[in-house]
């Protein structure tokens, strides 16, 4: 018989196990950092290629040492901007590089990065005749709001960022907004649309998004213009502040248009099994089912609806169908779903920004990341555009002057109008509505910017799709 656990052997083994875990953890951390920092490094290289002809490449080298050598190696490429950068403007954001908000957050970061690279390629942001290169710094907040606040503080105090870009998600944005206010550093965000963020009387937070109350208004408006016209509405919503706000506003709007809300059902945030709620919805026999929640819940509703035979003229979702995962995971079951969206690639605004048109933004994004941009990505880029316009208008990097320039900004971007009310909310841009048709997202509302898309109505029963 063996006695495997004598004390001295145990200590030795314990030491080894702990050491092993440490090594693995460090390795992981290193990998994580590499992926986070890789993006700025490569883009800095892209930007500096234009500077390599000049003599003051050293100036860039101080801010991006690794990048300068890459630039020298790749040689010179002709571009619109032929000078050298006179300095850098640093933007920082806590983002969810892991955790439950990963898919949405990644798009946000890609939006920021695409804007940064596009602007740097054209000579950066021009302030008083000087060209400033954009740099970005991100931290991983693991989708936790206390962590976002902590990291925003770190970005301001240690990394000395000039301005803040928004994190992903309402609660995270709200906590960073507080830090921005205390530090008097402007933040433009494109992923927190809850009114609660803006009703605190803060002066340094600006949101490029249409606010939460407008989120599903388009879906209701579209529905009321169809034949047969739905009258009974079932609303299922998660109990986070954003989803609740959207649900309450949608209920109010639908009722003001003469619809009857037959089910108004709250469920725990991030719930993965919505059989009970769908059962209730089926009993209420609605003409239309609307969900205000997140991707996992939206797909759970689709699964349960198919399984329990819940049929309606239309299914609308606040989040879910706007993401590429919708089609890749649900396939045929994802068809006919309606979604309110901040932006789609089909909208036909003519902007005076670095992208100009939605098509241009879409093409550049697709070429760079090989996925379709969701509105989160466009919102991210729009944050950058708002900052760029405001900084150029202010002619200064002074946070207070840039804040004032943001407050009085009125600019048209590929994303739609960028203009803020006195709370910092962009109430001037309408929401668009998309529908999944044969595995593709089609913009179907509002008609004037929908480029010809038409809603398929009503949704066939599950057995007849």
């Amino acid at each position: 018989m063996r006695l495997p656990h004598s004390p001295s052997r145990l200590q030795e083994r314990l030491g080894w196990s702990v050491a092993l875990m440490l090594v693995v953890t460090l390795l992981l951390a290193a990998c994580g950092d590499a992926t986070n920092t890789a993006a700025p490094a490569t883009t800095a290289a892209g930007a500096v290629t234009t500077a390599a002809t000049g003599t003051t490449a050293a100036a860039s080298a101080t801010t991006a040492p690794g990048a300068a050598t890459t630039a020298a190696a790749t040689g010179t490429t002709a571009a619109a901007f032929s000078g050298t950068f006179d300095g850098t403007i640093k933007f920082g954001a806590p983002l969810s590089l892991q955790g439950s908000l990963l898919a949405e957050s990644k798009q946000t970061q890609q939006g920021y990065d695409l804007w940064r690279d596009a602007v740097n390629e054209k000579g950066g942001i021009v302030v008083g005749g000087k060209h400033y290169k954009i740099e970005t710094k991100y931290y991983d907040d693991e989708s936790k709001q206390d962590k976002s606040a902590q990291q925003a503080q770190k970005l301001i105090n240690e990394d000395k960022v000039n301005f803040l870009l928004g994190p992903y998600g309402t609660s995270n944005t709200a906590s960073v907004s507080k830090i921005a206010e205390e530090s008097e550093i402007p933040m433009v965000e494109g992923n927190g649309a809850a009114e609660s963020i803006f009703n605190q009387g803060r002066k340094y937070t600006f949101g490029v998004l249409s606010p939460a109350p407008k989120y599903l208004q388009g879906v209701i408006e579209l529905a009321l213009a169809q034949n047969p016209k739905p009258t009974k509405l079932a609303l299922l919503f998660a109990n986070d502040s954003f989803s609740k706000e959207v649900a309450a506003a949608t209920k109010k709007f639908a009722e003001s248009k003469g619809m009857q809300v037959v089910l108004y059902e709250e469920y725990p945030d991030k719930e993965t099994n919505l059989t009970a709620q769908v059962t209730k919805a089926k009993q209420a026999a609605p003409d239309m089912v609307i969900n205000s929640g997140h991707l996992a819940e939206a797909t759970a509703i689709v699964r349960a609806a198919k399984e329990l035979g819940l049929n309606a003229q239309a299914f609308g979702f606040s989040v879910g169908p706007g993401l590429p995962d919708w089609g890749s995971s649900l396939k045929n079951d994802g068809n006919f779903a309606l979604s309110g969206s901040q932006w789609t690639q089909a909208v036909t605004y003519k902007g005076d920004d670095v992208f100009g048109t939605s098509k241009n933004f879409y093409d550049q994004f697709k070429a760079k990341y090989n996925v379709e941009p969701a509105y989160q990505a466009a919102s991210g880029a729009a944050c950058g555009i708002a900052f760029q316009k405001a900084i150029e208008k202010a002619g200064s990097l002074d946070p207070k002057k840039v804040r004032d320039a943001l407050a009085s900004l009125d600019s048209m971007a590929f994303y739609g109008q960028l203009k803020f009310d006195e709370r910092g909310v962009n109430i001037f841009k309408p929401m668009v509505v998309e529908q999944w048709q044969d595995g593709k997202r089609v913009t179907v509302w509002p008609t004037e910017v929908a480029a010809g898309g038409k809603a398929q109505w009503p949704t066939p029963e599950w057995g007849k799709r």
Partner: protein
Amino acid sequence: MSLQVLVNGLLLGGLLGLVGLGFSLVWGILNIVNLAHAAFIMLGAYFTYYAFENLHLDPFLSLPIALVLFFGLGYAVQKFLINRIIRASLLVTFLLTFGLEILIVSLGRVVFSGNAVRVNPDYGSASFDLGDARINYMKLAGVGVALLLTYLLYLFMAKTKTGNAIRAVSMDLNAARLMGIDIPHIYCLTYAISTALAASAGMLLSLYLGTFTPDSFGIFNIRAFAVVVLGGLGSIPGAMIGGLVFGLLDQFAQGVNIGNISLGGWKEALIFIALVVVLIVRPTGLLGKEGYR
């Protein structure tokens, strides 16, 4: 109240029973709160997904393969990691399994990506009607699998020599050692069975969730915990009973209104209140035996 709510609760409960079963086994016999349990559930779900998408292997057919593979994986994890510190204080094993959980889920994000995926066989939504309730064949089969595995484990523990040895270890470690039982091997076997059960729970969950990502499963550690405490630590039928009670509570809280008020948003609170009540009335859980450990 509708029959559908009852059906939903039982279908969810059987699944949660299986989630709790492996957790209960390791906790009861190794005295480890295995926080890596949900990570193995996640791996099981992704195994099912890749077998289905790439090899076109039906989830119910890939399950036996998963059981064998994850049995091996669990055996290795216990032999090379956990056995080395099993006699250390509870906090150390706690930290190790917590670390394993983070490690596996983080690797999962890298390897599987954070994109949502779904396992959806053609027959996935086929169902039959029983009164006014609709019952999904696939989920019913899932509960069947859960009950079968529970019964097989029960038989194994009660009838086989190895099963008796495992129980002996949980009852009195020193006496078991004096009887010549190879303790480290028994520990490995127990953890291996638990891991295989976690993987089978992952397979069933992959059929249950709308879509999933590597981050979708962390919550099942807490649920497993609740199921085990409800049902009674170390009891095999207890885990299944705990799961069914949990599932029914969950679905009743969300599916039945009190007057006009829906308790859906409060269901976690309700379940844990029920848990506290059970602990006050029966500290050993519904089927737990005093001094079994």
